[in-house]
């Protein structure tokens, strides 16, 4: 058994042992506040057991292991339905970026340790109402203010901002240059005066994302994490990290086995639906698509293990998997017919077809829309020309709104 397999076995055993305390069943019926509290205790338990910051440097409280141990653990962890998603973004992007670009090492170390133990949560303040897929088009501005800066503007789609203690933010510090060149990257205290967080209710009924307003929020210059005007590079570095978070060939929806079970239970024209060619075709097509994504995934890990850089095909997962999850979920509801109406908006997207269906559009848009992903593949991988962009090279304050 390889070291990695041994690691997987050990992790699986530990996760099994804490599942009763923190897992799916323990969470049933909890208010979101209680669920978050449970999540903080679970994060602390992971830290104590040596499963927090698995691939982070030990000097920051990490385990100093490789990305492989990390994805191995994540894959096992996913099975138990732990309340870990409150910390997914925090430990996924902002905190790693803080480690890389944070100016004051002592301060950084303190923050990272608290974040790893679930005491503090960080959010990522990028998107804006006017922005859409155009990150560099952001309008929130920071103006020089004494020895620091004064932030005014609005961010949106900020996950978990309503629970966050800190956030990383990109703002415009110079509107007179081309839009990519006038940005600067800071960290902010979400409790600072002038910061207002307003949750956004989503189509599915719940509210994990927020609008965040900045009214004359004053920060000192030691909050700056990039050169003045050099914020876009750090923002891109932040987004690159996302490519290495664990993928899911089910498109973060239910496993195909659940569809097969449904098709066996349900009768169509007096026979089990699993015998109907239309249903069989969807099962076969979705399995082929998912097994392809899984194989891409496994190969990427093996390459990393061998010290190679995985190919760009890794970016296909979100595009292909979420899109087909949406249609498969619709079919799963049609297949239940008059039994499909019964709806629980708190059911898990990974286990309930209606919940998977109603949240699928958010999945297709969050973290890069289908169109953005197709453009990225076409331009970065295949070398096709960029779209026509009238605003290219024009000073930001001269682009017609």
């Amino acid at each position, binding site marked *: 058994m390889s070291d990695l397999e041994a690691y997987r076995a050990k992790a699986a055993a530990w996760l099994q042992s804490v599942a009763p305390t923190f897992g799916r069943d323990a969470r049933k019926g909890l208010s979101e506040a209680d669920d978050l509290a449970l999540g903080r205790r679970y994060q602390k338990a992971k830290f104590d057991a040596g499963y927090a910051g698995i691939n982070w440097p030990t000097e920051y409280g990490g385990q100093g292991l490789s990305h492989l141990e990390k994805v191995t653990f994540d894959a096992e962890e996913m099975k138990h339905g732990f309340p870990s998603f409150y910390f997914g973004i925090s430990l996924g992007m902002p905190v790693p970026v803080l480690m890389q670009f944070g100016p004051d090492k002592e301060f950084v170390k303190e923050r990272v340790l608290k974040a790893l133990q679930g005491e503090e949560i960080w959010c990522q303040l990028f998107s804006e109402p006017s922005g859409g897929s155009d990150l560099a088009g952001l309008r929130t501005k920071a103006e020089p203010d004494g020895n620091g800066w004064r932030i005014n503007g609005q961010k949106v789609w900020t996950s978990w901002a309503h629970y966050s203690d800190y956030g990383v933010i990109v703002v415009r510090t110079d509107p007179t240059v081309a839009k990519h060149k006038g940005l600067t990257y800071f960290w902010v205290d979400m409790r600072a005066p002038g910061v207002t967080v307003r949750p956004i209710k989503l189509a599915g009924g719940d509210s994990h994302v927020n609008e965040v307003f900045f009214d004359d929020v004053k920060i000192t210059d030691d909050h700056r994490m990039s050169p003045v005007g050099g914020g876009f590079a750090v923002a891109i570095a932040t987004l690159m990290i996302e490519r290495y978070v664990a993928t899911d060939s089910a498109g973060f929806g239910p496993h195909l086995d659940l569809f097969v079970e449904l098709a066996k239970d*349900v009768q*169509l024209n*007096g026979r089990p639906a699993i015998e*109907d060619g239309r249903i069989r075709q969807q099962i076969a097509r979705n399995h082929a698509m998912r097994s392809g994504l899984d194989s891409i995934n496994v190969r990427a890990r093996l390459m990393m293990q061998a010290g190679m850089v995985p190919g760009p095909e890794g970016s296909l997962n979100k595009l292909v998997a979420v899109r087909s999850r949406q249609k498969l979920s619709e079919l799963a509801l049609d297949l239940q017919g008059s039994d499909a109406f019964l709806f*629980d908006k708190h059911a898990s997207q990974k286990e309930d077809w209606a919940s998977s269906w109603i949240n699928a*559009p958010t999945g297709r848009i969050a973290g890069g829309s289908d*169109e953005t992903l197709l453009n990225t593949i076409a331009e970065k991988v295949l070398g096709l020309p960029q779209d*026509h*962009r009238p605003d290219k090279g024009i000073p930001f304050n001269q682009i017609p709104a």
Partner: protein
Amino acid sequence: MTILYDEGQQAIAIESRRALEARVGKDALLPLLETVGEYHRPFWDTAKEQGWTALALPEAHGGLDLGLIELGLIAHQAGRSISGAPFLTSSFGAAKAIELFGSDAQKARWLPGLASGETIGAIAFAAGPDALPARPDVTCTGDRLDGTARGVSAGLAADVAIVYANGPGMPVLALVELAGAQRSAVPSFDNSRLIADIGFSGVPAETLAVGSTARGAALHILALQAVVTAHEQTGGAEALMEIARDYALTRKAFGQPIGAFQSVKHRIAELYGLVELARANCIHAAAREGAADFITAAAAARLSATEAYDTAARDCIQIHGGIGVTWEIGLHLHMRRARSLAIEQGSSLFWEDVLVDQLAGEAA
């Protein structure tokens, strides 16, 4: 029957659109999603005042003696503005069952109320995925019903239901007053559909048809409802296509309206195609009521309208990006309605089979 709308029909379309746009909006509909057992009363009041409830019913019983074409025009407009209750279709189906297969006494008893809209009707044929099951869950012995009809639209408000039941060795189409039935509300993703499980234990019922006649009758009622629903779905798809178009014209990215990007532009053009195909099938089907190929025409309308509404819901939200998935913008009202209408009266799986049986000349 011509498929060109005459002046009277065009007037119905214009008037119903005006009336609905004046009185129905997302601000009223959004809260209903989180309330079980409520529907949008102003919508139904409008339907009653405007006489839509009486439109396609016989004059002898308080109706206006118009037909599917006129009711379809209303349903199209109702779909555009998202109708606040399922009664336009459910009461129509119940009324047609009574008109076509009921006794004079039954007509006199029920049709006037259904025509005025004071009485609400429901159709309880389906058992799970099967819109017209070989073995219905409800059984009919003598003149009494037992068992539970699951997931019945309008079930929470209906006074009378037409039930497809399992009689002695053969199916039965039965008329039942719901006063004596137990109803339990089904919390759903589209609560104003008033979904209910309706439990019967020895509830008295009157038989409308038995055996293969009952199955043929039930399929005919489903087809009539399917044409009305197809118009409603087409209206919803048309509204979403226009919303997407308008957003693509105003929303800017990278210095130009997103409608200038072919991925957005062609997607909306494809929606136009789906809407027009669905509309054409709807007009054709409505004009074929009573003809030998009515079931075929109804199935085609139903299939293309379901595809149009589902695709429009997916794409319109996708084109909006983040704002499209917010609760407040309410595009999910259409997405939810697209699904509930896709399931009521049988899913695409059911209508595909009905259509092929017609085309291939097999028994339905």
